[in-house]
């Protein structure tokens, strides 16, 4: 009976506790009550930009990949970074829902599409020209609201035992042929695959893209939910080849604790500007009231030699600034025969998804 009375008590007190916490938590989400210990280390722009020594970052990229470079940033500048991690798409939806009330100062996204969607609603602020100029036109927003931080190339991952080098296709177009029936892994729900299909629509026309998707769907493809699963299956020999981003091979090697060369999966970069060699980006945009010196300092740091070197070495992605070497063991970004396309032209994902659904791949 004692137990019962206690539970009743909890029930009776709960509304009170809730009410009490409503008032005490009032300041919790706001970050402006933190002491301003850090000076604006990055560009010393007093009077122009506000700095309170903290910033809130919405990261659509994985914590394991991003947190170390943010820690470096904090020890370098003294600016504390509060980070929310979530899936890039869900985070874009969250930002759109929050609108003007968003606690976020910056949005780090896995792909250009998410940045474009948030920017289209007017939620991203324009970046200073000096920042934009660090990155090639192709890899930044036309209206200056986001910049690319790292580049990732679409590749054909192939099992070295199952596919001799001289049998590798020169173009993604070949993958709909009978010699590849049942052998090709794709991840149609993945943003990277959808960007690539969008690029094909832009470069080769709607009909060509639709025909390719139908051909692929008819060729008994191996459909997976994620790129990582494709690479693992190619390595194990369950699939012969797969259309993925280049860095998944490095993730697999890290998990297995071996060098990438020891894996049975290798990378094939499509030559001659084939759509299959599209280079996409992960990027960043500034949210809310700007100029915010802290958020700007973060963008500057991520585009500095130190920030870019981190991504090259730790996530095996291509740097966006000039004068840095690409990841070891990969051809340099300039050597890749990438298709001639501007990422700003890849905004129309709706039509792409409609076509992928139509082809029965989704």
């Amino acid at each position, binding site marked *: *009976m004692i137990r*019962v009375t206690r*539970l*009743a008590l*909890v*029930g009776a007190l*709960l*509304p009170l506790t*809730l009410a009490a*916490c*409503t008032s005490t*938590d009032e*300041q*919790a*989400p706001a970050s402006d009550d933190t002491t301003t210990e850090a000076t604006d280390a990055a560009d010393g722009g007093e009077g122009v930009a506000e700095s309170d020594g903290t910033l*809130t970052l919405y990261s659509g990229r*994985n914590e*394991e*990949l991003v947190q170390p470079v943010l820690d470096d940033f904090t020890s370098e500048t003294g600016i504390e970074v*509060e*980070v*929310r*991690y*979530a*899936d890039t*798409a*869900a985070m*874009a*939806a*969250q930002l*759109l*829902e*929050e*609108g003007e*009330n*968003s*606690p976020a100062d910056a949005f780090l996204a896995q792909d250009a*599409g*998410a940045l474009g*969607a948030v920017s289209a609603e007017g939620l991203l602020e324009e970046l200073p020209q000096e920042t934009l100029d660090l990155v090639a036109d192709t890899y930044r927003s036309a209206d200056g609201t986001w910049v690319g931080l790292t580049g990732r190339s679409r590749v054909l991952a192939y099992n070295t035992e199952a596919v001799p080098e001289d049998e590798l296709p020169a173009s993604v177009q070949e993958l709909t042929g009978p010699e590849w029936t*049942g052998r090709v892994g794709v991840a149609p*729900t993945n*943003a990277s695959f*959808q960007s690539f299909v969008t690029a094909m629509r832009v470069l080769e026309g709607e009909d060509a893209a639709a025909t390719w998707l139908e051909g692929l769907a008819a060729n008994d493809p*191996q*459909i997976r*939910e994620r790129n*990582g699963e494709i690479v*693992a*299956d190619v390595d*194990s020999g*369950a699939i012969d080849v797969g259309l993925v981003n280049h860095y998944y091979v490095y*993730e697999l090697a*890290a*998990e*297995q604790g071996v060098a990438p060369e020891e894996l049975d999966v290798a990378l094939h970069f499509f030559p001659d500007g084939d759509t299959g060699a599209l280079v996409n980006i992960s990027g960043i945009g500034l949210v809310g009231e700007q100029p915010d010196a802290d958020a700007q300092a973060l963008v500057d740091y991520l585009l500095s030699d130190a920030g870019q070197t981190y991504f090259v070495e730790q996530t095996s992605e291509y740097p966006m600034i000039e004068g840095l070497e690409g990841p070891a063991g990969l051809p340099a970004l300039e050597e890749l025969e990438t298709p001639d396309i501007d990422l700003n032209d890849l905004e129309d994902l*709706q039509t792409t*998804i409609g076509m992928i*659904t139509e082809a029965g791949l*989704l």
Partner: protein
Amino acid sequence: MALAATAVALLPLGYLLLRTAEGGLPTWWETVATERVARLTATSLLLALVVTLACLVIGVGSAWLVTRSNTPGRAPLAVLLALPLAVPSYVAAFTWVSVSDLWSADPGARFEGFGAAALVLTLYTYPYVYLPVAAALARVDPSQEEVARSLGCGPWRTLTTVTLPQVRPAIAGGGLLAALYVLADFGAVSILRLDTFTRAIFTALSSGFNRSMALTLATVLVLLTLAILWGEGRTRRAGARFSTATVSRPAPALDLGPWRLVGTGTLALVVLTALGVPALSLARWIAAGSSAGQAWDRIGGAAWGSLSASLLGALLTVALALPVGLLAARHPGRLSALLERAAYLAHALPGVVVGLSLVFFGVTVALPLYQTTWLLALAYASLFLPLAVAAVASAAAQAPPSLEEAAQSLGTSPARVFTRVTLPLTLPGIGAGAALVFLTAMKELPATLLLRPTGMETLATRLWSATGIGRYAEAAPYALLLVALAAIPTWVVVRRTGIVPAGAAGPLPGRAVPHPADPAPVEPVVSP
């Protein structure tokens, strides 16, 4: 109070209406009246139907075996049978896929599609039926069954005409929860590649950043839920019965003879398949991967995050469910039925939609609460209110209202009647409800990611981070701890609800017939 509680469950609905109204009805109709939506509806409903039927068979069958038969090993099995609920569907599905190479060398025959999704969802959803039904069976006064037996009814006839009708509210409630869970689930259908509404909603959101499309699809899901609620309501109207027990004594166990071993075997098979496949898969991940060490520094903080957020969510949910559940059971009428049904409406919505609606609610109405644990707890309440309402209502339906009336007639104040009579009688149900909410909240991912305080980690979010970049060895400890932590409240509930007779560590000597010395008071069945 019941109104306020229901309002919480209706938050996501209000949000959906608001967003749909922005687009206008013609746009809505244009999006909805397509062949794809028709196909999604058919697939989603068929999946819900198949899984619910399978859950009813497994759930009611196993509940009866562990509470009413002399099946050997029923005490440990009673606890183990509840455990699959602790396995998140995304973990379950992923582990099933990743061991499928063991029985099939042909990559073309991948473990996916309707059959795979139905199997996985059944194995991890049947406890929604098993737990409330077992709790109800353990509390049903055996006297009516004894009367039936003494009047010559066979065991089967007694079961179907006397026992099961008495626990009918629990069966119907559990089946409804299972059906709605299937509609709301994303993890299993996405990994097993079955195109259902939730998957289409996520796809619209994640690949087109198309909120209006996603939310329009969600409104159709709400309409499907309405249809299911209507259907379940019709079966329920046939009449719940109050047991008029004044004493609570355990029902005698039926001697199954040689069949009792078959019972043990079947139950063990269910438990082994449901828990063994994930265990095997996680063990392989740890063995094959090199990232397991990463987990140990972080697991403490993540466990604390999971426990605190889920506990707060469970307390809040139960506090909100009490008035709704009691009202529905004690004052049946149009209003109470409406309120109770309304609690279920948001339950079939995927977590991401409920999460987004609370983001909207947070930034427009409750900004001070936004990205605090309180709003996260509110989201859990919104998502999981029916779990607690069903438990409270079915427990209250079994507790005879005559006791409350007697207490009141003796001059006890309503508040005291509640604490001294109603609450003790419904406590097993409340406990089961709280545990269900607690477990389910621990597994929840999409709404947690959207609403957690910045920087807070839970086991589910850690699991998501680690698998996101292929660190399966690191993911395995989080998954194991998640299941282990969830096992504790499960065990407590199973003990408390009396599914396992106190002190019965091993099989009890079975008694085939009621003890002749038990002069059971014969009382008529009361219909409300």
